[in-house]
């Protein structure tokens, strides 16, 4: 996917969003049609017009296409690590309520470190335990922040 294509895709998406948003305001209660509904309609129109303008300008510039425009969209310098971390983060978030904060973190931290190329066992241990201890003391004990507890046990 080239950068240009990604851009067009995004602009197209925003345009659809603008149309949907505009249409949705009809469902607002009658007495806000003049206030909040008008505000949302205004936003939708602005977004639509701006997207069209940007599309128009990019299509006009087509002839003098620059290298940067046709270059492939490079989301990450190290794709394996980038997407690996992404997936890991989503799994971490999803396991939050099931495993509880501490267990989920105790799994997430070393896995992420391994993925990113840490190899010294000492680093894994010290960082994981140190961070979790800090969270326990400062967040939970001192400030009484509630962290998700495991639904597995009791």
């Amino acid at each position, binding site marked *: 996917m080239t950068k240009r294509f990604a851009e067009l895709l995004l602009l197209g998406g925003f345009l659809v969003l603008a149309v949907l948003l505009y249409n949705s305001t009809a469902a607002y209660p009658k007495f806000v049609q003049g206030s909040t509904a008008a505000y949302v309609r205004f936003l939708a129109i602005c977004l639509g017009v701006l997207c069209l303008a*940007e599309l128009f300008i990019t299509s006009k510039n087509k002839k003098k296409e620059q290298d940067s425009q046709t270059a492939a969209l490079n989301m990450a*310098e190290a794709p394996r690590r980038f997407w690996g971390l992404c997936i890991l983060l989503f799994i971490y978030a999803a396991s939050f309520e099931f495993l509880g904060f501490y267990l989920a973190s105790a799994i997430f931290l070393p896995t992420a470190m391994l993925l990113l190329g840490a190899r010294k066992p000492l680093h894994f241990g010290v960082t994981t335990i140190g961070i979790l201890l800090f969270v326990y003391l400062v967040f939970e004990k001192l400030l009484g922040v509630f962290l998700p507890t495991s639904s597995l046990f009791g």
Partner: protein
Amino acid sequence: MILESLSSLMAPMPLLAVLLGTVSGVVIGGMPGLTATMAVALLIPVTFTLDPLIGLVLMGGVYCGAMYGGSIPAILLRTPGTPAAVATALEGYPMTQQGRAGLALKVSVIASCVGGVFSTIILLILAPILAQFALTFGPPEYFLLAILGLAGLVSMTDEKTGLIKSLISGIIGLIIAVVGTDPISGMLRYTAGLTDLYDGVAFMPVLIGMFSISQMLTLTGKKSVVDNAELVTEIKREPLPKGIFKFISMGSFTGTLVGILPGEGATIAAFLSYNIARRRSKKPELFGNGNPEGIAAAEAGNNGCVGGSLVPTLTLGIPGNSVAAALLGGLLVHGLIPGPELFTTYGPMTYAFIFSLFIANIIFLILGLYMAPYFARISLTPTELLIPVVCLFSVLGSYSMNNSVLDVFLCLLFGVGAVLLHKTGFSLGALILGLILGPIAETGFAQALIMSRGSAAIFFESPQALALWLITFLLLVPPLLNIIKKHRMKSA
């Protein structure tokens, strides 16, 4: 009376309380997900039993410290500890990448201190007059204030992001802010039946996602935050840039002024003064690439809010934000009723509290200056350790704001989305600006129309409104002329 209050403050116990409050404030402000409100709320039951002055100065210290603390991770890791530190991250983090974290931290702590002290002086001298000024702001004026802030979208434009793209980003931010309960009819809009979205898309998780998570994802391809580690030692002792005080004073002024308006937050103050600095700078092209002037303005702006927000709290009993609200609770518990009496009958207590804010500012100044070189070393941590740890705190921070797992997913989605938007040339700063100002703009607009029973003339009636239009216009014209000029040069 002044002497009396000073002598009551200069005892070991109150001084210790200020110190303790400030230091814990800095720590709390520095952790995303911990807020000064949490700490102050914990202090409330404690203040029942304590001497009222001790309780108050503790809270004041936490407030001052937290406002500054947010800037430390913003500069070093692009992870704003408080929403008000976003503008600081925009300039501070690029400086860290260049190995100039030490200077960035120094500028931020000095600007914070000056902003804080300036606003406290204003609080001390002009509180009653300014409170009256704050009251003249009604819904139409708040709407125009949001418009004034949105005018900053134009200045978010640089070579990478064109004018139209930054405007689109801003509008996307405004649209995201529409999600939630309609402020006027109470109807639910675009919430997909999720209770967590009834109050709108939570601000802090989005912020953490767009700044922190996206940056950590990008960093996966690098060895450390700093591009060239050898640079760090070379420019360790960089002197303060010349003319920086102009921006600090500008920020202090803007921050105090915005802080006085009840309900307006430090985030808006920081962004407004950041944008003004961008307009007034002689080197605007450096903005977005690590300009200390931007840090100075933003930090002076958000710390200026501290004293500013206490003006309506102490004189009228209208708290400017949730920390001030908790402080107000602390005052009421001890029978101190906000109003003129607070400065006469209860004067010794009130003035002692105000003086303690000065001390708090000095404490974090010393702490910040002393610790800056040590903090700066965080930027040299290898990424394989740094990224997992920052990710953990980002996730934890977005969860603990509202105890919501949905917020964590939002944070991650916005993180990945931000990388995509950034790569395709959309401006993240503009999106955040839209997100911050959206609710104020919409509510102000709709409330004003209710007050005027549908007539738009209300936006042009008061002198304040006209002044706001004028400032917006003045801020808007030069960049627009600039863009047109550039465009002509290009096509010619």
